[in-house]
């Protein structure tokens, strides 16, 4: 680690660590909800399904700056939810937690899409069979559906993680770019490019970004292949 700290400046190192922390938390926090929403959209018929579907996809089609501004309005300290949460000591605006929230919301639609496709690929007849063998809905999900959608779930998580690592527009609008607090990798690169002589630092961070993205991709390929082998019945 000391070699890397020597290679990266302290501010750059901070940005890398912060981005990893933000993205991992964003992915982990969003994943259970994404699985639930994906399952509901794939399996259940309910009133307002189209509205939920559109709402989930909204961050994908809105300009990220707009999403960031909406977050600021809702989760800012003067916003309806942000204000209430502040009473119990939870603050998102201009904190790393806010960066994680922005990243999670931007990554959410991508995760839902990937997971929904894999839920749709699971034959509901298998869940029926599990029910006749005595498994409740929750146990059906835990023992049949979840293991079978694992490849899609991993793919969705990696996609979400990558999106979270790269998230810029909503983050910088919602939590700004405070070094050590909310300055993630992309906002650090952007900041370095704004100052004369910052190109080498920007280039170093770019290389780090590429390395992280490739590692995540390879890891997910490996995990997904293992999971697919198991789910495929061989």
């Amino acid at each position, binding site marked *: 680690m000391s070699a890397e700290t020597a290679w990266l400046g302290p501010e750059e190192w901070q940005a890398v660590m912060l981005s990893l922390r933000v993205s991992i938390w964003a992915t982990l926090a969003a994943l259970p909800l994404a699985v639930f929403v994906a399952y509901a959209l794939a399996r259940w018929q309910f009133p307002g399904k189209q509205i939920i579907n559109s709402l989930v996809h909204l961050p994908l089609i809105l300009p990220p700056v707009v999403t960031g501004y909406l977050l600021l309005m809702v989760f800012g300290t003067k916003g309806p939810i942000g204000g209430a949460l502040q009473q119990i000591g939870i603050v998102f605006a201009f904190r790393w937690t806010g960066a994680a929230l922005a990243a999670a919301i931007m990554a959410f639609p991508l995760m839902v899409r990937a997971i929904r496709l894999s839920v749709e690929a699971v034959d509901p*007849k298998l869940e029926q069979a*599990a029910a006749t063998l005595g*498994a409740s809905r929750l146990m059906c999900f835990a023992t049949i559906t979840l*293991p079978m959608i694992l490849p899609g779930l991993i793919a969705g998580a990696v996609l979400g993680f990558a999106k979270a690592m790269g998230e810029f527009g909503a983050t910088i609008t919602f939590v700004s770019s405070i070094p050590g607090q909310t300055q993630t990798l992309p906002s650090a690169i952007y900041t370095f490019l704004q100052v004369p002589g910052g190109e080498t630092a920007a280039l170093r961070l770019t290389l780090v970004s590429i390395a992280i993205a490739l590692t995540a991709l390879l890891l997910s390929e490996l995990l997904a292949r293992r999971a697919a082998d198991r789910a495929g019945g061989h």
Partner: protein
Amino acid sequence: MLTVSLQHALPGFGLNVQFEAPPGVTVLFGRSGTGKTTVIQTVAGLLRPDQGSVALEGEVLCDTSQGKWLPPHKRRMGYVFQEGRLFPHLTVRQNLLFGQWFAPRDAKRESLDKVVDLLGIGPLLQRRPGRLSGGEKQRVAIGRALLAAPRMILADEPLSALDEARKAEILPYFERLRDEIGIPMLYVSHSAAEVARLATTVVVLQDGKVQRQGTAAEVLGDSAVMPAGVRAAGALLQARVARHHSDGLTELDAGGVPLFLPQVAKAPGSVVRIRISAHEVILSRQRPEGLSALNILPGTVEHIRSGAGPGAMVSLTTPAGRVLARITRRSARALGLEPGAECHAVVKTVSIAPEDVGSGG
């Protein structure tokens, strides 16, 4: 005792069915598209009927008039599906043990070893379903249903996805379930051969209604009820294995009449049921002599039923039981057949296929 009464709208027709399934194997017999699967799915709780009730041993599983509905996982019905539906991500062993997790502790359960032995699936335990043949999959599916400690087995055309050789391989396992485990079973089928082999009680469904209910011999011997079509008609006889002859034939005693069949792998004294296809039976007024056919059953014509075509279905009472014979109307006239007429039914030994010989009564 399973009691079913239900009404349900299906595309094109309405299902309106009432029946009771006593202990043993009750076969829901009918052509495809008569609502058999809807009935069995309602019993399992996989489908909510528009109206109706299902009760097992007095416990109400579903009653729309009281708004009662027990979800499938609380019914403990071991369901054997047409296509197996094994869990692809689990090994055969894990598939077999799946239901045991959820079965109540005090439930009467079969041991894994006994079921594995009964179904001959020991060598498959470590494999995954993707590597099994169709017949192997179905045997594992039977075991999986059985090991969930079910109160009843529901089987929805479990053989129809298999080829003839595999069908012949799997059918005996259902007989063993009936004879060795003694678990009540509701079995959906459109095959007269399966009815003949398995049924204790037959419920014939036609156009969404129960057309006839009775024992296998009663229903299969009734020329008015032929849900599988005239070609598949054939009466069921019960006989006792008398002795095995050195030339490969087995002699049976059917109500005092000797019957010769190609070797039946059953010990002398055991009871078998034999289905005699109606189109394999020849009728003769005099006892025929100098004939190659070995089986001659003396009898009396009960009635003759003819349809629009050239054929006629003659039902005959013999000491062995009722026999159906499909002959032409022309022959019936030429022989002067009419109710009460004395007549002999002639059946070639080799026309009785091994799959038409089942165990038990």
